[in-house]
C-alpha cells in the first residue's frame, strides 16, 4: 500500500527507518511530529528473526539484567542464612525456569513495541532493507518477495552484531555468541568466555553466579576504554569469587570431542606455553560490528570507517550522502548504549520534521557494567583526565567502603570503591565519577544529573548524605590520591 503521491511529494514516506531496535523504534515513533494528516509519516523495517526491540530487548540489556538479577538472588539466598533465614545447605539453580521467564518477558516487550508503533501510526514492515539510491529502499521478505519504497529521508539504525573470530578453527561451528546465550533452552554448563569487554564480563558474571564453572580468556586488558583501576577491581572481585581468568591468552582452536564436549587449545602469550581444557560451551565476546555490506552502502558512497565498518556520521547524525542519516550502534564513535540511541533518534526525527534544531549531546553519558560487583561511571576515566589536564591539573578523591549489608553477611568488600576525579584548583569541577558496589547503576543516576549541571567537589561535600547507604560515601570522599 502506498500513500497518495500528492500528499508527500514524489516520495512514499517522509521518514523511512531501517532498523527496529532501541534507536530505530524511538526515531520512527517520534515521526508522529511530521504531520497528523496522512499516513505519509514514518516506516520501520526490520529484517531479523527477533521480535521488535533490537539488541537491547532480545539479546542485550533486558535478558542480561534479568540473568544478572538471577545470579544476585543466588548470592542473596546465601546471605539470607546469616540474617536468620532457614535455608537448606545447598540451593541449586534451574536454567530452563529462568530462561522461560526471561523469554516471556522479552516477548511481552516485542508485543508492546508492536502496539506502540500502531498507536503512533508508524507503518511497520518485517522486511530486510537495503539501499537502492538516496531515496529508495528495497525491502526483502523472508519468502524472498521484494518491495520498493521511497522516502524523503532514510535513517539507518541497524546496530551491530557479535563478531566471530575468523582465524580460529572450529570457532563458528562450535562456539556461540551473546546472540545465542540468552536463548539457550538448556544450561550452557561449563563455559569458556573469550573476551574481556563488558559483554564478556557480564555474561561470565551471571554464569558463575548461577553456579556454572566459568573461565574468562583475556587477550590483553579487561574493559578497554574504561578506567583501568576500576576494571581491575571488577575482575579482582570476579576472581576472588571463583571465576577463572586466563590472562594474556589467545585461543588456537576449538574441537568437538566424541563426548560432545568442546576442547579448546590456547597459548599463554606471556610464557608461550600451550594449554588445553574441555568445556560444554564456548562464548565468543570479541567485539561487535555492523552488517553494512547487506545494506548496500558502498554503492551509494556512504562513507564508512575502514577499521570498524561503522558509518561515519556528523554531529547531526548525517552521513556523506544527503538525506541519509545513521545513528545508534552503527554510528562511528558513538556510545553503544540504548539511552543515547533513543535520545538521538527522537532528536533526529524532530530535526527532520523541522520542529527543532537541537543536536544530541553525547557528553557526560553515565553507564554501568553489570558484573557481579557492579561498576558505574560518568565522565572521564583517571587516564583520560590525566591526558587532558596533566597529572598536576587534577585532584582525585577516593575511598574504599563497606556496604552495611555485607557486614552481617560476612561478605568481602575489598573491591567496593569510589573515585572522584576533579579539576585541580579553581572550582574543583568534577571531571569523572567512578563507583563499584551494589546497585551501582541506581547510585550513579542521580550523580549524573549533578554532573550534567557542572557539579564541583565543593557541591559534592556540601551535600548531606543519606544514611545508611553506599551512595552517601560518595559525598563524603575527602582523602586524595596525592596525599598517598
Amino acid at each position, binding site marked *: 500500500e502506498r500513500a497518495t503521491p500528492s500528499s508527500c511529494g514524489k516520495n512514499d514516506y517522509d521518514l523511512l527507518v531501517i532498523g527496529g531496535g532501541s534507536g530505530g523504534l524511538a526515531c520512527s515513533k517520534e515521526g508522529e511530529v511530521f504531520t497528523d494528516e496522512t499516513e505519509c509519516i514514518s516506516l520501520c523495517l526490520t529484517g531479523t528473526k527477533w*521480535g521488535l526491540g533490537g539488541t537491547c530487548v532480545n539479546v542485550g540489556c533486558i535478558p542480561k539484567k534479568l540473568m544478572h538479577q538471577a545470579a544476585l538472588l543466588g548470592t542473596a539466598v546465601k546471605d539470607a542464612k546469616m540474617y536468620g533465614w532457614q535455608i537448606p545447605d545447598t540451593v541449586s539453580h534451574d536454567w530452563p525456569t529462568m530462561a522461560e521467564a526471561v*523469554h*516471556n*518477558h522479552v*516477548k*511481552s*516487550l*516485542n*508485543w*508492546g*513495541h*508492536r*502496539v*506502540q508503533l*500502531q*498507536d503512533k501510526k508508524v507503518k511497520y514492515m518485517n522486511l530486510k532493507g537495503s539501499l537502492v539510491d538516496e531515496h529508495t529502499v528495497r525491502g526483502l521478505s523472508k519468502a524472498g518477495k521484494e518491495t520498493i519504497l521511497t522516502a524523503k529521508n532514510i535513517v539507518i539504525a541497524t546496530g551491530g552484531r557479535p563478531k566471530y573470530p575468523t582465524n580460529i578453527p572450529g570457532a563458528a561451528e562450535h562456539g556461540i555468541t551473546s546472540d545465542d546465550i540468552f536463548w539457550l533452552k538448556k544450561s550452557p554448563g561449563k563455559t569458556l568466555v573469550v573476551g574481556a569487554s563488558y559483554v564478556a564480563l557480564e555474561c561470565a558474571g551471571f554464569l558463575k553466579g548461577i553456579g556454572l564453572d566459568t573461565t574468562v580468556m583475556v587477550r590483553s586488558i579487561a574493559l578497554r576504554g574504561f578506567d583501568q583501576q576500576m576494571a581491575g577491581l571488577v575482575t579482582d572481585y570476579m576472581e576472588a569469587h571463583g571465576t577463572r581468568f586466563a590472562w594474556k591468552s589467545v585461543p588456537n582452536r576449538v574441537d568437538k570431542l566424541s563426548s560432545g564436549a568442546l576442547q579448546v587449545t590456547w597459548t599463554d602469550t606471556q610464557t608461550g606455553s600451550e594449554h588445553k581444557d574441555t568445556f560444554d560451551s564456548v562464548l565468543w565476546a570479541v567485539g561487535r560490528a555492523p552488517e553494512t555490506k547487506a545494506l548496500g552502502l558502498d554503492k551509494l558512497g556512504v562513507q564508512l570507517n575502514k577499521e570498524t565498518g561503522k558509518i561515519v556520521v556528523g554531529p547531526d547524525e548525517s552521513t556523506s550522502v544527503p538525506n541519509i542519516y545513521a545513528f545508534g550502534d552503527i554510528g562511528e564513535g558513538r556510545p553503544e548504549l540504548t539511552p543515547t540511541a533513543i535520545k538521538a533518534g527522537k532528536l533526529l526525527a524532530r530535526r527532520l520534521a523541522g520542529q527543532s534544531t537541537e543536536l544530541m549531546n553525547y557528553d557526560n553519558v553515565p553507564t554501568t557494567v553489570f558484573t557481579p560487583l557492579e561498576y558505574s561511571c560518568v565522565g572521564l576515566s583517571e587516564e583520560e583526565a590525566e591526558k587532558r589536564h596533566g597529572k598536576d591539573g587534577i585532584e582525585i578523591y577516593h575511598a574504599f567502603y563497606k556496604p552495611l549489608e555485607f557486614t552481617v553477611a560476612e561478605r568481602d568488600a575489598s573491591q567496593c570503591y569510589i573515585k572522584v576525579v576533579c579539576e585541580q584548583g579553581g572550582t574543583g569541577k568534577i571531571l569523572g565519577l567512578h563507583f563499584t558496589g551494589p546497585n551501582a547503576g541506581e547510585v550513579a543516576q542521580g550523580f549524573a544529573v549533578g554532573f550534567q549541571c557542572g557539579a564541583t567537589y565543593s557541591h559534592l561535600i556540601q551535600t548531606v548524605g543519606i544514611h545508611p547507604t553506599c551512595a552517601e560515601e560518595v559525598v563524603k570522599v575527602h582523602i586524595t590520591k596525592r596525599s598517598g
Partner: protein
Amino acid sequence: MGRSWSRMSLSRVFMMWEMAHRLVLRRLWTLSVNDIRCLPTSTASVASSCYSTSLQSSTTRVSFLSPSRSLPRALPHTSRREVSFNVQDSEDFTERVINSELPVLVDFHAQWCGPCKILGPRLEKAVAKQKGRVAMAKVDIDDHTDLAIEYGVSAVPTVIAMRGGDVVDHFVGIKDDDELDSFVSKVIGQ
C-alpha cells in the same frame, strides 16, 4: 481461484463474493472504545492483564464501529461446529469467526501472559455451559500479530464477542466465572 465462473454454481459464486466483501469490510473496521484504559502491570500474578511496564501505555482509544451490513444471509454455509478452536490463519478466522452462524468469543492471548492462562479455562467453561449456542476462537497474538493489531488488541487477555461478523462486545483482563456467564449470556441474547 482458478475455476471459471460459468462452471461454479450460483450459490458458490455468491458465497465467494460475500467472503470477499466481508474481508474488505473487516479491513475498514477499527476498534476503539472510549475511556477504556489498559493499565500497565507490575506482576502477572497480581494484575488482571499483561502489558510491558517499560512502555508507557497511553489511553488506548478503542471504540466500536458496527458498519451496517446489507448482505442477505440467505445461503447456508457448511461451517464446522467445534465449540472451542485455535485459529490457524487469516482465512480460518474469516471462515470460522466472521462467517460463523454462531456468536463467537475471540480469546486473544499470549504464551507469556500469566492472566491469559487463568482466563482461558474459565472462558472455555462458560462457553461449554451454553451447550453449542456460542463458539470460542483462540488467537495467539504472537502467531497472529497482524490479526491482533487489526482488532486493536493492546493488553492481553482481550476477549472480543462477534455476531454475524460484527464486534458486539469486548473486555480486557480477567473476569470471574459469574462475570463471564453474564457476558456470554448477553452476547447470545442479543
